[in-house]
């Protein structure tokens, strides 16, 4: 059977749930028969097993077209075997599979109870592996849990590497759907995919089915699908039950005494060897052979083999070694992406020098694309202090003075418009200024943080993205309440937090609520947020309002400044934004009246009091239009552009 060419590594979205499986599959695809043989991938239905093994097949065929790659599901295999037996052509059947270089076997769980097939499979696996050919298998469960299968076959299936694929997390689901939408050239309104990703689909296939349905609704119906419609489109109970193989009879045929021959002797020896040889030692030795061939230093593993005692933790040591290699490769990739010459550096070949490699990569990356910084518009000098916010401001000043030493993290919360964004950005700017512009201060909103993560997931550049933040000297996240309920974002934030915090880098968060009131915020993050200083910024009090009005009316011509400021400050204001709006409103009223601003004008405008003599009763229709930001002050000269109709 042909491998489905649509299934490639490039369109397989990698997340934390399947990273190991993908890494193993890639290793196998790059060097069939040399790394993990056999590779056994298992997972629930619809999580990408078939995609992954097809990707191996396609990759091999693309790189080595002369290799004989065969993809077959176990059902087809059984059918072919039966047909061959019926036509007395078993030799041809054996020859055919004996020639395969890379055998991809799907749905191995259907081996249950099939004696004949098991015997044939055992023979085939022996023949293929004995000659160094690669076998990759998938199943919905690990080999040891497939019922009624010959022990000897199970040891063969488990002899290489067994990896599983877990269901994807929220962010990976979004990345998968975005990738699919890009493929189809479809765009949805904001929130639609997020809504879909939050619904409970048991696997990616169902998720894609749902996505197809809304794509169809949108492209055929002509109307944009809205986020609030998504849930209504999928009723509960739409999920089909998972397929499980039927358990078969459990009888076992034991070989008679008379038919022992050399083959079965070898087969028994193989079973005994598989049972008694320490599998981890084999793996260690294989790893030494493989990685030294790849040019990596293996001294750590060699020492492990020599000094091995009965209690040596091979598993842990190997895992650490592989993890280190992965990281070396990652760092090498990052470094070479910036400067190809760095690839020759010896540190990328020695797993004992991962830290140096990381430092090198970080240096390379930090020089290339710094994370987003604080907005320069927000400065500390323009920030007025009153009793309602002085605690927060003092804490912020302490942070500016000694970043990372006093309040780390500093968590500022309060209602909208009281100046949280201004304050945290100002702190970021001051930290940069204090360092003479050398410090890298990452400053983002939580939404932007998550969007970048999803984009990185989609492009497979998460590691690079992560490094950018981990390399920062300080991290400022605004509107951090948005991470609540976002699994993966919280996980990433957690790791970035830890990485920075242990290095004594300053962390600064702004939110509309205090941490304990954020629903869906993981405990590990909440406790970390609360571990520094949580401080509230309240609605501006009178003293602060007075300062604010004085500040904003500073450049305005007024008749009775003090009285006016006093009058305005007496009015309650829910936020700094409201204060600014009020200033604009009275200034505009004075402008319209053509008089200098005074308490009387302000009073008339705001309280609807007695009209001031000589002032025409012109009221702004809607204070909205008096907001600076909402008015186009310089209209282009439209007249010059008009073209008269010749008729």
């Amino acid at each position, binding site marked *: 059977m042909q491998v489905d060419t649509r299934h490639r590594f490039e369109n397989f979205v990698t997340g934390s749930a399947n990273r190991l499986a993908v890494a193993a599959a890639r290793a196998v695809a790059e060097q069939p028969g040399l790394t993990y043989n056999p590779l056994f991938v298992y997972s629930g239905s619809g999580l990408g097993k078939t995609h992954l093994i097809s990707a191996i097949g396609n990759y091999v065929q693309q790189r080595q077209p002369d290799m004989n790659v065969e993809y077959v599901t176990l059902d087809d295999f059984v059918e072919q075997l039966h047909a061959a037996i019926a036509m007395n052509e078993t030799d041809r059947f054996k020859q055919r599979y004996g020639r395969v270089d890379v055998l991809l076997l799907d749905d191995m769980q259907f081996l249950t109870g099939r004696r004949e097939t098991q015997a044939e499979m055992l023979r085939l696996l022996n023949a293929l592996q004995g000659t160094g050919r690669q076998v990759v298998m998938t199943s919905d469960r690990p080999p040891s849990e497939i019922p009624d299968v010959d022990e000897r076959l199970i040891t063969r299936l488990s002899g290489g590497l067994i990896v599983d694929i877990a269901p994807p997390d929220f962010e990976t689901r979004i990345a998968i759907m975005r990738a699919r939408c890009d493929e189809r050239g479809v765009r949805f309104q904001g929130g639609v995919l997020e809504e879909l990703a939050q619904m409970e689909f048991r696997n990616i296939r169902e998720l894609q089915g749902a996505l197809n349905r809304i794509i169809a609704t949108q492209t055929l119906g002509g109307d944009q699908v809205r986020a609030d419609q998504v849930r209504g489109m999928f009723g509960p109970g739409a999920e089909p039950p998972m397929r499980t193989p039927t358990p078969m009879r459990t009888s076992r045929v034991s070989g008679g*005494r008379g038919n022992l021959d050399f083959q079965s002797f070898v087969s028994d*020896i193989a079973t*005994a*060897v598989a049972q008694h040889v320490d599998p981890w030692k*084999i793996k260690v*030795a294989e790893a030494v052979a493989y990685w030294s061939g790849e040019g990596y230093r293996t001294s750590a593993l060699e020492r492990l*083999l020599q000094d091995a005692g009965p209690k040596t933790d091979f598993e842990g040591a190997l895992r650490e070694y592989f993890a280190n290699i992965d990281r070396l490769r990652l760092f090498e990739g990052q470094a070479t992406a910036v400067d190809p010459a760095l690839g020759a550096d010896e540190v990328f070949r020695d797993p004992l020098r991962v830290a140096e490699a990381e430092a090198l990569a970080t240096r390379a990356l930090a020089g290339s694309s710094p994370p987003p910084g604080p907005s320069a518009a927000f400065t500390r000098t323009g920030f007025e202090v009153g009793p309602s916010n002085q605690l927060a401001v003092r804490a912020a000043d302490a942070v500016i003075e000694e970043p990372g030493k006093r309040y780390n993290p500093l968590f500022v919360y309060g209602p909208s418009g009281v100046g949280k964004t201004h304050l945290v950005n100002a702190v970021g700017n001051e930290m940069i200024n204090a360092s003479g512009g050398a410090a890298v201060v990452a400053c983002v909103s939580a939404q932007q943080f998550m969007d970048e993560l999803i984009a990185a997931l989609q492009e497979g550049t998460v590691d690079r993205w992560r490094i950018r933040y981990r390399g920062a000297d300080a991290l400022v996240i605004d509107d951090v309440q948005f991470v609540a309920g976002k699994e993966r974002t919280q996980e990433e934030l957690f790791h970035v937090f830890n990485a920075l915090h242990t290095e004594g880098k300053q962390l600064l968060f702004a939110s509309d609520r205090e941490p304990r009131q954020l629903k869906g915020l993981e405990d590990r993050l909440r406790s970390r947020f609360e571990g520094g200083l949580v401080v509230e910024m309240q609605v501006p009090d009178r003293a602060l309002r007075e300062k604010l009005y004085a500040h904003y009316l500073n450049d305005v011509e007024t008749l009775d400044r003090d009285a006016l400021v006093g009058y305005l400050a007496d009015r309650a204001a829910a936020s700094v934004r409201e204060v600014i709006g009020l200033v604009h409103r009275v200034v505009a009223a004075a402008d319209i009246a053509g008089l200098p601003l005074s308490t009387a004008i302000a009073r008339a405008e705001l309280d609807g009091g007695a009209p001031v003599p000589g002032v025409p009763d012109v009221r702004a229709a809607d204070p909205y239009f008096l907001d600076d930001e909402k008015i186009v002050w310089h209209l282009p000269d439209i007249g010059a552009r008009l073209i008269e109709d010749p008729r």
Partner: protein
Amino acid sequence: MSLVNYQTREITCKIVYYGPGRSGKTTNLHYIYGQVPEDRKGTMVSLATQTDRTLFFDFLPLDLGTISGFTTRFQLYTVPGQVYYQATRKLVLQGADGVVFVADSQARLLQENIESFQDLHQNLAEQGVDARTIPLVIQYNKQDLPSDLILTTAELSDTVNFRGVPDYPADALHGPGVFETLRGISELVLKRLSAGAAR
């Protein structure tokens, strides 16, 4: 000699067939040799006297191919059974991973079986090997002979197999019991792999 070499990825098993003269040790090896597929056959080295009795020793290398990533080789040796080849027996026994004791089932040779078995223990002891720990199986050969000439498995077991190791009736000339014996000793040897590898 290390049984499992993780660095070169080799498993090498040395199994010695021990027993009184003319009990059928070489016949065991010949039968095994005959069963090995052509592509796996090594050269069987046999130095025989004119009367077809083993003068020095037989050596049959068995290449079992790659098992679990290991190149697996079994080396089967026989010792000359005759009493006066003591020195050769000691030499061959050196470094054995397992021993098959081939007993002659004929009733009149019972005493020779016992003497040879004692000789085995003595030689092992001289090499500092504890006979209680080395993998050992016993084969009662020539069970195809007329029943009035031979002892039954039970009778032989009572006299020879006082340590209660696995034992197998066999007819090495025609095959029955040969691979059962080899399989038995191999399993015992391989069982020691994990312990042996940690040395």
